């Protein structure tokens, strides 16, 4: 299988993500330069629970399973992001994240997340919204 997405296709893809919904075209282009692009094989562990130093990931294409202590927490897909909790709190990864099929992500190294978010307050606001939705869902499910 041949997988190639050129720059314009990638910008188109991420322009539809909630996280980047408020950004202009040049800002989106900057995003794909600031972030690294990474591909993960089906079954590959992307984040290891308990390990330090992981990054902030945005799924461009593919799916992932989030598990902590062997218990399924969530399934993530295109447009979802993960890895931010450990970075924002300065703790080791709180869950395993595994690609359940071939997955393409944009990745920002942990040490760059704070300066990125403070330079892009609209992205930070969107992230806060998403986190708040997750919190509300968790409250409703009683966990």
């Amino acid at each position, binding site marked *: *299988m*041949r*997988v*190639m*997405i*050129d*720059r*314009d296709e990638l910008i188109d893809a991420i322009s539809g993500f909630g996280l980047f919904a408020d950004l*202009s*075209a*040049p*800002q989106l*282009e*900057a995003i*794909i*330069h*600031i972030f690294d*692009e*990474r*591909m993960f*094989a*089906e079954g*590959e*562990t992307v984040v*290891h629970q*308990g*390990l*330090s*130093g*992981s*990054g902030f990931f945005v799924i461009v294409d593919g799916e992932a399973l989030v598990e902590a202590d062997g218990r399924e927490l969530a399934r993530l897909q295109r447009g979802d992001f993960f890895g931010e909790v450990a970075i924002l709190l300065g703790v*080791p990864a709180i869950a395993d994240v595994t690609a359940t099929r*071939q997955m*393409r992500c944009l*990745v*920002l*190294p*942990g*040490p*760059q997340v704070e300066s990125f978010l403070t330079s892009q307050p609209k992205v930070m606001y969107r992230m806060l919204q998403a986190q708040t939705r997750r919190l509300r869902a968790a409250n409703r499910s009683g966990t």
Partner: protein
Amino acid sequence: MTEPTRPFPPGDYPVVVIGSGPGGLQISYSLRKHGIEHAVISEDPSPGGMFRRWPHFQRLLSWTKPYAAAPRGTRAYERYDWNSLLAEESEARALQPGLMDGTSYFPSRPEMEQNLGLFAERAGVAIRYGCEWTGTRRIDDADGGGFALETTDGEYRARVLVVAVGVAQPYTPPGVGMELTHHYAEVRPAETYAGHRVFMVGKQNSGFELANGLLPWARSIVLASPSPAKFSVQTNSLAGVRARYVQPYEDFVLGGGVAVLNAALDRIERTEGGDGTLTVTMRRTDNGDELAVEVDDVISATGFVTPILDLPDIGCSVSGRTRLPLLSSYWESTTLPGVYFAGTIGQAAKGLVKHGVPANSGAVHGARYNARVLARHIAEQRFGTPATRAPVAPGDLVSTIAGELAEAPELWHQRAYLARAFTVDADAGLVDDGVQPLTHFLDEDGPNAVAATLEADGTGAIFPVLYTRLGGEIRERAMVADPLLRYDGTDARREIRAILREAIPDVPAD
């Protein structure tokens, strides 16, 4: 005319290696040490790969210290010599320092080419030069299948392919008038830019290298890309523009005629009535303002892609702009088993990239160790050659690990990427499992074990991390960073012992 002396005529081989750069030379040498017969083919006329042509300004980015803290030719010396390939025979070890003229600790391009040629000769690496790989197909048969390679000399068949062709094909992104640019690979002699206004698309090492080399020639230089330039001395890693090429940036901030812009290209056009000049229009990424400059030359320093021909068509997934293949921890295509990658393409197996610090697999000083680990893996997994797993007395483990942390070049160069593993085997007791990819250790279920690595966290510190596997559960234990990087002293040994005893109770208390 030279036909009778050329090795490896077309035919059947257990393994075919493609490429005669550092990656091809190192994997061939290492496979031979494991007794794995193979052919090596290369379209080039001589060894060296990309170092036969580049870097443009004839000086490498990777250093070799002729006088270092460890004697030349020892294993510990490899930490200070990024350019020599690895051999067991003393006459083929640490070749680079003996070929340098003392004007710089970065070898010149010809010195590097000479180093690689001398290695091929002294280490006895045989290569069929002038043999170009032109196509590939899969063979499905009862023996587990393999691959047929079409070449300009005829057809080769092999169970296993090792592709070491570099990331060497110039890449210019399409659109916005990029056809009016010329690529890094097509840059003319520096003097032909005398008095020119030069626009550089791209702010990574290749863009800054050219800008640096053109400082004495160009009238003005603009470097532009959408995101801010990153510098290695700020990221505290090889991610970013290397210190040697920072001069154009200093020229920029001091107003000397260089401009470094954060802007997305909008279009490149011939200037109306401009006598062959070009107008580059771009949009600033910080405030969206439009900018335009008129220049004489636009150079695309937009990188290289992987020339892996038709491998994607027969199932090898590739990713992104560089077309790097999707690889396992052991540099095997995850979608086309039996095809392995050595040399700079090995950077596609990124590992953990902890704290954003990449491994050095794209450079010789990382790739040479990957190749040695890969050769052992191919021998074991594909040809049933059992790897040596030497027993280790539990009482010796602390000093063995302290010794590795002090000087193992694999761990120093491939931080958080290669690890030295020791396993409590049910039959053999504590054994040395050698150097292996850290992600393999983390993802593999197995008996109690420990893997020793060195890591960096982007602050400038380099410190050991021990990963213990106890009852199948991995724990990460970082040691205290020493600013003088001494990890075999009394305090370090005490720390190592305490961590080891969690997973391997046979390690004595002191």
